[in-house]
C-alpha cells in the first residue's frame, strides 16, 4: 500500500486528510511540523508529501528545501498547501510539484493527488 505523508499543524485538517486518503486506499502518516515530517520521511519513504506552508518548528518551505537537497528524497512529489495565494508562496519556496489553495474541496485534493501520482482518478495503486 502506497504511503502518503501529511505534514499539517491544523489538527482538524490533518485528521480529515488522513481519513479521506485512507478511504482512497493510501496508508497515511501525519506530522505536525516540518521537522517531524522529515523524521517520518526517512522512515516511511512515502510516494507523496502533502505539506502545509506555515507551521511551527519547521515550515513547509524549509521542509521542501530539505527534501530537494537530499538525493534520497528529492524525487518525492510535494504538494504545498496554503491559505495564501500561490504567487505569494512561490516567491518564498521553489520546487513543489503542485499547489493547493486552502480551503480546498475534497475533489480538488483527490484530483491533485491523482494527477501528481500519474493516476487520473486519484486512486491508490
Amino acid at each position, binding site marked *: 500500500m502506497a504511503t502518503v505523508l501529511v505534514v499539517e*499543524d*491544523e*489538527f*482538524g*485538517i*490533518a485528521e480529515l486528510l488522513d481519513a479521506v486518503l485512507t478511504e482512497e486506499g493510501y496508508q497515511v502518516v501525519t506530522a*505536525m511540523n516540518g521537522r517531524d515530517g522529515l523524521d517520518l520521511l526517512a522512515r516511511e519513504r512515502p510516494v507523496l508529501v502533502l505539506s502545509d*506552508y*506555515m*507551521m*511551527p*518548528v519547521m*515550515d513547509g518551505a524549509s521542509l521542501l528545501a530539505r527534501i530537494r537537497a537530499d538525493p534520497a528524497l528529492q524525487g518525492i512529489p510535494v504538494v504545498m498547501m496554503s*491559505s*495564501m*495565494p500561490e504567487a*505569494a508562496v512561490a516567491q*518564498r519556496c521553489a520546487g513543489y510539484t503542485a499547489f493547493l489553495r*486552502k*480551503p480546498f474541496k475534497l475533489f480538488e485534493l483527490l484530483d491533485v493527488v491523482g494527477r501528481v501520482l500519474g493516476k487520473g482518478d486519484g486512486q491508490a495503486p
Partner: protein
Amino acid sequence: MSGANSTGLKRVMTGVPGLDTILGGGFLQGGVYIIQGTPGTGKTTLGNQIAFNHAAQGGQALYTTLLAEYHARMMQHLGSMSFFDAARIPDQISYLNGFGTLKSDGYPALRDLLRREVTRHKATILILDGFATAQRKASEEQDFNEFVHELQSIAIATDCTMFLLSSAMGVKETPEYTIVDGIVELSDRLLGWSSESTLQVVKLRGTSYLRGRHAFRITDDGLVVYPRIEASLARPSRLEPDAAETVRSGVDRLDAMMGGGVPAASTTMVMGPSGVGKTTLGLQFLSQCAADEPGLFFGFYETPARLRVKVDKVCPPLGTLLDSGAVEVLWQPPTDGLLDAYGERLLENVRRRGVRRLVIDGLGAFQSAAVEPVRLNQYLTALMNELRALGATTLYTLAVPDLTGPYIREPARDLTVPSDNLILMRYVEIGARLRRMISVLKVRNSDFDPSLYEYVTTGHGLQIEGTLAGADAALSGVPRREGGTRNQEPARRGG
C-alpha cells in the same frame, strides 16, 4: 508601534480606533492580556486587527490558534477588511496551530512550542486564539495556572506582548485572571430588536484607563471603539477660551434681543415645536460663517439634499458658503445610531476644521440613540463643555411636543443640559390664526430683552417684527387680548 508611560514602561498600541484612548495609550509591552467574549463578539477580528496594525508599524506577530477558526477560513473572512494585508504573511505575521501539540503532549509541550516560535519568529506580539480550549483541557487546575504563569515568564523574557483570546467568560477571582496583566471583555446584548456591542477593560495593571463600557462596531475597517464621551472628556481637552465678545446670530433683531449678539464659544438651546423655524434660524446662524470662521451643520432629520433645497429657499447666502466648503453638512440618519459615534464624528470635524459656528439640529436624536438614558445628561454636558473649550459657538435645536397650549413641556429631563443661552420659539393662536413668536429666556453674562416677538419666515429666513403687544399670556399659546378675556373667538373679517 510603541510609546512609553511615565514609569518608563513601553506600550504596544493596538491601532484600533478608540481602543488606545481607553487603554491610556495602549497595552504595556511584555504583558499578558486576556481578551474574552462569547462567540461572535469580535475577538478574532480584534486579534487580527491588532496583529496587522502591529506589523504595519514594523512589529512581528505570531497568531497561534488552538480550537478556533481554520486559518484558511479566517483569512477568507478577514480578506475584505481594510487592515488585512496578505503581503505581510508570513514574513511579519505567521499563523500556526497549537491544538495538536496540546492534545497529544499537554501544556508543557504547548508552552515549549510557543516559546520556541516566539523566539524563532522574533515575535513582538503573540495572539493565542482559542484560549478557552486550553482552559477546558485542564484536568488539573494547578497545571493550567502554571501554564499561564509560564506564559508570563516567556512574555517577560522575550518582551513579547501576549493576547489570549477566550470565549469563556471568566471570573475575576480565578487564578489565571489574577495572574494576567489585563482583561478586556467584549459583549453583545439585545435591546428589544436591536443589539449593542460593548468593550470593557475589566483589569489593567500599571496604567490608568477609561473604566466602564464603551460601544463598538465591527466595520469593514475592523473594530471601531467609541470611548464614552463623558469618560474620555470628563475634563475638556483644553481650557475654555476667555471669550467676552459676541457673534452675530444672523438675525439682527435677535442680536438686539440678546444684548448684542450670541456670546462667543457658548451654547444656545433653541426650543420649539416642529416646523416653527428652528432649523431656519440655525441656517441663518451659519450664514455668518467665512473661510476663516468655518461652520458645521450636524443634522439628523433632513438629508443634505433636502437641506440644500431649504437653504436655497430660506437662506440663499448659505449656499455659497456650502459650495466653498466654509460650511459643511454632516448628516446621520437617526436610526440605529450610536450615541458616542455621534459625538466622535461631531468632535472630529470641529477639531479638524477649527469649526467656529456649529448647529446641532435635533438634540432629540441623541436621546433616541441613548441605550442608557441615565447617561444622557452627563454625555451632553461633557460634549457641550468640550465644544466651548474648542471655541465653537454652538446652537442646538430641541423639539418640544406641543404645538400650542398652556404648558411648555420639557421633551425629557435628560435633555435639559446646562445651556448658556435659551431661546424659545412657539406658535400662538391669535384671531384663529397660528402666528409665531420668539423670545429669549436666558443669555450668559448679559442683559437681554425678555419681550415676546412675533416673526415670519421669508425668502431670507426669519424676520422678527414687533412685540406681541396687545396679547397677554402669549407663552400659553392661547393669548388673551390685553384687558380682555381669553381670545378664543375666530377673528372676524370685514366688520
